[in-house]
């Protein structure tokens, strides 16, 4: 039950993009068409879960016993950066089909702030390993959801008359604001 709550809060109530403004660069930049946003969403999900599985043991079994917890920022960013590189090499060599589908997104992911934020929050909230993984899946599926929603809205906007002063980037933020209002409805979901 506790796990379901963590998952739902991360997915809907505290949606990573619409409620918490993480990963906005890719949210604005990669939602030109639905296919691309889905690819990016799954690539982020994959890396977030891997990053959580890697950083949680490093923090709790290496940094904490050595009393080096203040190095958290430095260690996590390096772990994630090298992890993304390794995943890229591995996919390229062994699973070329998957690499073709999400390889181009991988380099962009290293500096995606949602992933780093998830790994920090797992520590700050004191989650256990299982809870951390569930939280990571929830957050990144929330990211996927927001990406697909905005991509759909943008698809519709291509044929609709947008007021002149909002054309281009401003309308994206206004649309996101409205999506955000809709997502605030979920806050009643969890007591």
């Amino acid at each position, binding site marked *: 039950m506790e796990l379901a709550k963590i998952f739902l809060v991360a997915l809907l109530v505290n949606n990573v993009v*619409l*409620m*918490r*403004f*993480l*990963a*906005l*660069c890719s949210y*604005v930049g990669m939602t030109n068409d639905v296919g691309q946003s889905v690819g990016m969403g799954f690539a982020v999900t994959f890396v977030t879960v891997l990053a959580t599985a890697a950083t949680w043991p490093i923090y709790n079994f290496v940094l904490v016993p050595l009393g080096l917890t*203040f*190095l*958290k*920022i*430095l260690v996590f*960013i*390096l772990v994630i*950066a090298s992890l993304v590189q390794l995943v890229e090499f591995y996919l390229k060599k062994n699973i070329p089909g998957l690499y073709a589908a999400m390889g181009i997104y991988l380099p962009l992911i290293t*500096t*995606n*702030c949602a992933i*780093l*934020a998830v790994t*920090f*929050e797992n520590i*700050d909230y004191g989650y256990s390993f299982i809870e951390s993984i569930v939280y990571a899946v929830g957050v990144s599926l929330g990211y996927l959801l927001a990406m697909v929603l905005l991509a759909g809205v943008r698809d519709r906007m291509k044929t609709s008359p947008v007021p002149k*002063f*909002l054309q*281009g*980037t*401003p*309308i*994206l*933020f*206004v649309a*996101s*604001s*409205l*999506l*955000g*209002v809709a997502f*605030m409805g979920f806050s009643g979901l969890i007591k």
Partner: protein
Amino acid sequence: MKSLWKTFKQGIIYENPLLMLMIGLCSALAVTSSVANGLGMGLAMTFVLLFSEIVISLFRKVIPNSVRIPIFIIIIAAFTTMVDLVMKAYFPDLSKSMGVFIPLIVVNCIIMGRVEAFASKQKLMPAIFDSLGMGLGYTWVMIAISAVRELLGNGSLAGIPVMPASYQPILFFILPPGGFLVFGLFISFNIWLKGRMEKTAKERA
């Protein structure tokens, strides 16, 4: 001296990281629900940017080109850690309300972008002026956005109530969707202003 001043001005207006280059948006929307947060974030950013640019500019001839990105990240992460620890020690409330966004300075595209595009190629003085210009450009936009949001959403500025007592705060503006809306309107205004500036420049020519 004149070129230094020009470098400084670039970041504040013409190449403003938030309004013109549109990078580093996450923190700009997330922590601007009150002026104190916006200012705190702006100063933290400026600090990290200034010292990262100083260090990287000083060592630019020693850093091997092929491994420069990891080295930049380590330097930026070191200064971010300092800010994080100082904030936790001396401003615990501010640190708590900004949460994960202080450690996230490390992946802020503004810093990586300026370090890569500017500090790694320039001498010390231009790098200092560039970082101050970019930092201040970031900070004033943060303060402007948070002032609008706090005034409308809470009826106060930097915690001091300024609206008449009969004013009913529009809670929407300090909630996340309000951040998106205000920022969208800021960009819209900025595009209009840029168009005007280009038009007058053309007429003059």
